[in-house]
């Protein structure tokens, strides 16, 4: 099996036509070019990596091939030598022998392995009778062919994450068996970031399956953030940057640094983290030993007025921290000290967190942060209702006045307290929800992706509002994958990999490029850390 790597790395195809050939692919969203003139070629029996940062155009390219987006005119596509007119109709990809596995896998947890395997067939097949015995037999044969130890009668929710991923991949490949036979094409499988939530052993199991699928003659397109994984599994890789092809590398002849250079656009210098100069500032908020979810043993000290950014690749756990600190999801252990009060993070509840002066603005704006079909008054006054309770009940007029005042202060447009929250634009909704929490004058403000889905103008206002809270003496923790935003508002940024902090950026290092670069490198940094490099943890002890 390992031979496939070196054989194909030379790039000499045994059939004349490439498996996939796309050229002049551009896509414009409202004046912004998400992709411009991209060319993309995948050889038969090749594992081809597709890399790039968030916003580089990876997802757009895949969505064009899956028929979700129509490309700008001028694009051409060939699949196994046959020209295919663009745009593709939704669902047409299957007829071409293309199969997609998305990160969320698309499995139904409460159904059995067999039912999940047959899902697309059950959805479309006519007929009055399902021969379960025969289907089970067929499933066993499919699993046996790829050396998988899956029980067709097991429920998917009882499977470990690795086996779910394996099942989703086998299913995608199995779904196109009819097309592969009918058109005599070997098929192309897209794996869109299948690995971030898998443990190391799981990843190698998944790679075994990918090689098995290549042995059947198919090509695999492997989308990932993890350069190490790309080095291990792919034959070649295409790197996108800012909507253009930054380069295509033969994996066997490429170095880790070559990939990183293409991804972020410049070579990286040896990095020496600067110690954080505390200048004897008092510590206001101290997190120590926080473990829970993906997060392992996080410790961080914050000073009044400091904005701390948390970031990392998807699955690294940074985005869980605000919820763990607020008690919105339960931590295994850890303590949080605010001023002189100490909280056990295993026991903290949203109520206790609020009493302690903590506020959380969740990322899911209309799911967790505010109720869309209730008015601005209702949404804004929710955390401070008791303060509006007079002798004769709620003082409705005072509530309206407060909403109107806060709306003016945060420049909510239109500032009509009676309007329903969902009738405002994303940016104005976010200003309302920020106002909701800032009126409580929190000592610690927790934010998760505060400007996601916020228009450019409002984005700046949200930044200003966050800086204002900090200036009023609050400590702010902001989890985000938007490096520009982190650079704009943060004094310090912690980068996570596999649940641990692997890098701390301070002062002049808090720039968009520096954060992007260190995030791309984070998995490698994490591996160093596991090997025993303790340089980072000493940095943290200062506080």
């Amino acid at each position, binding site marked *: 099996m390992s031979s496939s790597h070196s054989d194909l790395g030379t790039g000499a195809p045994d059939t004349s036509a490439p498996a996939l050939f796309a050229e002049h692919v551009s896509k414009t969203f409202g004046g912004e070019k998400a992709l411009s003139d991209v060319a993309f070629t995948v050889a038969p029996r090749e594992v081809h990596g597709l890399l790039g940062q968030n916003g580089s155009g990876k997802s757009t390219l895949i969505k064009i091939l899956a028929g979700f987006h129509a490309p700008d005119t001028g694009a051409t596509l060939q699949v196994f030598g046959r020209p295919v007119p663009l745009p593709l109709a939704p669902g047409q990809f299957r007829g071409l022998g293309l199969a997609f596995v998305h990160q969320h896998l698309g499995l139904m947890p409460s159904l059995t392995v067999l039912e999940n395997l047959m899902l697309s067939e059950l959805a479309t097949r006519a007929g009055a009778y399902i021969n379960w015995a025969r289907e089970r037999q067929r499933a066993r044969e499919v699993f046996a062919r790829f050396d998988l130890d899956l029980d067709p009668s097991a429920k998917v929710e009882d499977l470990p994450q690795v086996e779910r991923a394996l099942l989703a991949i086998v299913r995608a490949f199995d779904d196109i068996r009819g097309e592969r036979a009918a058109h005599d094409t070997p098929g192309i499988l897209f794996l869109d970031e299948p690995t971030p939530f898998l443990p190391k052993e799981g990843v190698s199991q998944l790679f075994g399956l990918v090689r098995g699928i290549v042995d059947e003659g198919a090509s695999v397109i492997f989308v990932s953030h993890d350069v190490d994984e790309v080095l291990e599994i792919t034959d070649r890789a295409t790197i996108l940057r800012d909507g253009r092809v930054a380069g295509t590398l033969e994996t066997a002849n490429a170095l880790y640094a070559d990939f990183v250079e293409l991804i972020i656009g410049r070579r990286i210098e040896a990095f020496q983290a600067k110690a954080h100069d505390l200048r004897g500032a008092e510590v206001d908020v101290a997190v120590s030993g926080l473990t829970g979810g993906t997060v392992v043993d996080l410790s961080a000290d914050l000073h009044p007025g400091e904005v701390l950014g948390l970031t990392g690749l998807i699955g690294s756990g940074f985005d869980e921290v605000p919820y763990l600190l607020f008690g919105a999801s339960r931590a295994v252990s850890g303590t949080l000290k605010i001023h002189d009060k100490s909280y056990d993070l295993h026991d903290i509840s*949203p109520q206790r*967190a609020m009493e302690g002066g903590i506020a959380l603005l969740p990322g899911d704006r209309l799911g*967790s942060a505010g109720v869309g079909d*209730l008015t601005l008054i209702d949404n804004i006054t*929710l955390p401070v209702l008791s303060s509006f309770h007079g002798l004769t*009940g*709620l003082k*409705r007029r005072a509530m309206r006045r407060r909403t109107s005042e806060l709306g*003016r202060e945060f420049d909510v447009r239109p500032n009509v307290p009676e309007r329903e929250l969902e009738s405002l634009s994303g940016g104005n909704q976010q200003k309302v929800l920020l106002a909701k929490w800032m009126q409580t004058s929190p000592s610690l403000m927790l934010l998760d992706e505060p400007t996601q889905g916020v228009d450019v103008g409002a984005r700046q206002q949200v930044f200003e509002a966050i800086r204002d809270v900090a200036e009023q003496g609050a400590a702010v923790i902001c989890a985000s994958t938007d490096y520009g935003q982190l650079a704009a508002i943060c004094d310090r940024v912690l980068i996570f990999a596999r649940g641990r902090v692997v890098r701390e950026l301070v002062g002049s290092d808090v720039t968009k490029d520096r954060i992007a670069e260190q995030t791309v490198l984070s998995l490698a940094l994490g591996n160093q850390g596991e090997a025993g490099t303790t340089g980072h943890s000493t940095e943290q002890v200062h506080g």
Partner: protein
Amino acid sequence: MAEGTEVSAKEKGVDWLLVLEKYALILAWIALIVVFAFVAPSSFLQWPTFSSIIFGSQAVLVVLTLGLIIPLTAGDFDVSVAAVLTFSAMILAVLNAKMGLPLWQAVLACLAMGLIVGFLNAFFIIFFRIHSLIVTLGTASVIQGLILWISSSQTLSGVSPGLIDWVIVNRLFDIPLAFYYAMALGVIIWYVFEFTPIGRRLLFVGRGREVARLSGISVVRVRGVALVASSVIATLAGIINVGTTGGADPLSGLTFLLPAFAAAFLGATSIVPGRFNPLGSIIAVFFLVTGITGLNFLGVDTFVQNMFNGAALILAVSLSQLVRGRKEQGLT
């Protein structure tokens, strides 16, 4: 910067469609009265028809509906309310008429039963995370069994005449006192919904449980209180039912369930459209009762009651969907 950003609702002019939507149910009620007045002027359009039948005898349904909208607002269904009502009536009749206990002791026993049923409902719904519809369907069936057991499937009469006097016999403006009890409860619930933090919390728990939780609301407590409240109010409805009919029978109370739901959902299309609200619910009860009473006067068979209530429920829910759909279109 302050100028111009504030847009007063008045400046935009009155949105007649919204006004119409708010009062459509009242207009429909008036229309219904007018139609019956024309068709059966001699029998229908008489004050006793309204004072006794429509306002007086249906206080039970008003009280039951008012209790029901509390858990509905918090996002939980309580289909055990009609069973609790019947059980409460039967406990009262058994303790007071059969065993000779004083009325106040029997009433206390009823209220205690309401508390227990509410707690049990809340316990299974919240602690085991079972859908409220399933749990309360189960408790309703258990309670029906208990009713048949303690009553030996017999109708009981002979409760203290004091209760009957204070529910249906004594009148103010020729309307039985039961009507005023129901209105008083309506005012209390209106006050709680509109003017207390509890009412707001109830609303947030129903609309966005996660938002409520992350805003520091104890979702468990709010849902629990709502379920206990609906059970206790259902026992009050049972007590009023005994006062209205002079006894308790093991089955007839159960027929209140569908009209109560129909009135709750129909009420949610008016006054405060899109929200379960007490005033809307009360008007909805009178609308339904007027329709059924009018049809009875026309000599239509009683099975029409079921059809009328059922159709009203489906119509009400469809209307509220339409209201929502129109709003969504208005935004884009």
